[in-house]
């Protein structure tokens, strides 16, 4: 479709330009201060590598966890009717608006060594989540999963359930219907939800540092390492890691653009 050209509005264009600068300048600042010469040195630093590896492993693991548990929850929210459903939906999507630090505190009070269920579990098995790598995964899933749940729920709601009826009349049992009809039909929503949850997990800071702590090698993910480097005056490696995070986020944004954020 060819749209007629819009009348030119100088005020709007000026404000839009200011807005664009607001986003472009920090990027330029980062690029300007990037220590290109010492790239190899920083990237081969063991601490930096460990932080990057941990970020990647934990964010992917939390995404898998979010899919395994979030898809069933989305299905329950989309398909079943029961009292307290809106409350359940509210609670499970709360982490989207909650300050992550608050989420970390709440996680500690539930799963911490003195937590509601953390204490009996630790007493019985000697195992605990806080300050461990699995703790990082839990914290990231806590903040990332809601994105997957609402995206998949929307997908399930907009799907034509009569396809499931058709599959059943052809002899498909419950699980076959879910696996061969429902899941493929909500595939785009599932992919979008998983990528959103993953990118949220990748950038997670507050809940992680509160719940899992900041131990290099076990719980110090890239965002934590950036913060610590900055605090301790190691600007070059902070900038380098930041740049890497930007590249990854940009890649996700571009990959998602066509599918989720609408055509640009």
């Amino acid at each position: 479709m060819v749209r007629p050209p819009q009348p030119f509005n100088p005020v709007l264009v000026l404000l839009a330009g200011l807005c664009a600068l607001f986003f472009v300048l920090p990027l330029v600042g980062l690029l300007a201060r990037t220590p290109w010469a010492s790239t190899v040195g920083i990237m081969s630093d063991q601490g930096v590598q460990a932080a990057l590896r941990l970020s990647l492993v934990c964010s992917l693991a939390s995404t898998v966890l979010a899919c395994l548990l979030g898809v069933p929850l989305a299905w329950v929210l989309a398909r079943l009717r029961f009292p307290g459903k809106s409350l359940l939906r509210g609670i499970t999507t709360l982490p989207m608006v909650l300050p992550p630090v608050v989420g970390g505190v709440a996680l500690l009070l539930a799963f911490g060594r003195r937590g509601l269920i953390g204490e009996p579990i630790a007493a019985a098995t000697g195992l605990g989540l806080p300050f461990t790598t699995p703790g990082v995964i839990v914290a990231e899933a806590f903040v990332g999963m809601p994105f997957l749940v609402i995206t998949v729920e929307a997908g399930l709601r907009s799907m034509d359930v009569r396809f499931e009826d058709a599959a059943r009349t052809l002899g498909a049992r419950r699980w076959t219907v879910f696996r061969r009809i429902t899941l493929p039909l909500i595939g785009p929503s599932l992919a979008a939800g998983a990528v959103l949850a993953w990118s949220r997990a990748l950038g997670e800071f507050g809940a992680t540092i509160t719940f899992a702590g900041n131990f290099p090698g076990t719980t110090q993910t890239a965002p934590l390492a950036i913060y610590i480097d900055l605090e301790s005056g190691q600007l070059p490696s902070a900038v380098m890691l930041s740049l890497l995070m930007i590249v990854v986020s940009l890649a996700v944004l571009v990959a998602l653009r066509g599918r989720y954020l609408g055509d640009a």
Partner: protein
Amino acid sequence: MTLRVEPGEVAVLLGPNGAGKTTVLRALAGLLPLADGRVVLDGQLLDDTARRIRVPVELRPVGVVFQEYLLFPHLSVLENVAFGLRSRGMRRAPARRAAGAWLERLGLRSLEDTRPGTLSGGQQQRVALARALATGPRMLLLDEPLSALDVSVRAEVRRDLRRHLREFPGVNLLVTHDPLEAIALADRLIVLEGGRVLQAGTPAEVTGHPRSPYVADLVGVNLLRGKALGDVVEVDGGGRLEVVGAGNGEVFAVVPPRSVSLWRSQPIGSPRNVWAGRARGLDLLGDRVRVRVEGRPSLVAEVTPAAVAELGLVDGADVWVSIKATDVRVYSA
């Protein structure tokens, strides 16, 4: 409501929207629980609310062609047709072979690798038919199988569908709101309205002897009901008709609109049925004008535009109605 359909016969449920046709179909397929009743197919009990028996949808030997076909958009045509066999535990290779044979039979072999979204309506319908038949059902249910199609291709697809349904040895039950489709496809026509069976029989029987205003409208005749005594019918709601040999008791009287004559003054001469009325609404229909006349009884007359001009017929005009006794067909209610 009771419904009995013989194997090999194409039964068509005809009724206006909201008559309960699709509900019957979904109940037979097991997609809707029965509130009260029994479904027996070929001696196999599928539903019996009294004994709390309900065979789950996936275990019923029933194939369904849905209104918009509902072909799975993410599977190829071949995979769509093989889906039922795979779901019933057949291995991939034999399932695909069997599905291919069905596609061959319905002239769709060349399309087996395409996605349903790119097919024409008529092709989609045949794929839906192949998919439903591939599992070897003993009953085939079709919900408005032609309504999703362009008018231009309907006649051809209907002919094909009729041929395929004839070849299916099980019970065929088709649902439609389109009388033409119903009469073209049915061995047995079952007219539903408000969740009840109004009439059932061969299309000729049903259309030849309307027993409800719905069927009378469909065929385009005046349907009156009343009590007969010899050659006179006392019409329910007022008026009397002289007829030839009505017998006794409750009867239907059918008057073709073309047999109704209209006059501006009381006619003299042979017609034995003459009464006064008032014209209410004139509709041009092809080369005829349909005039609704309120009187005792009220009915619809069909006259030529020339007659309308000659009589100066307008909405609200006083008219006289006459009908020959031999033009009234009477049968017992």
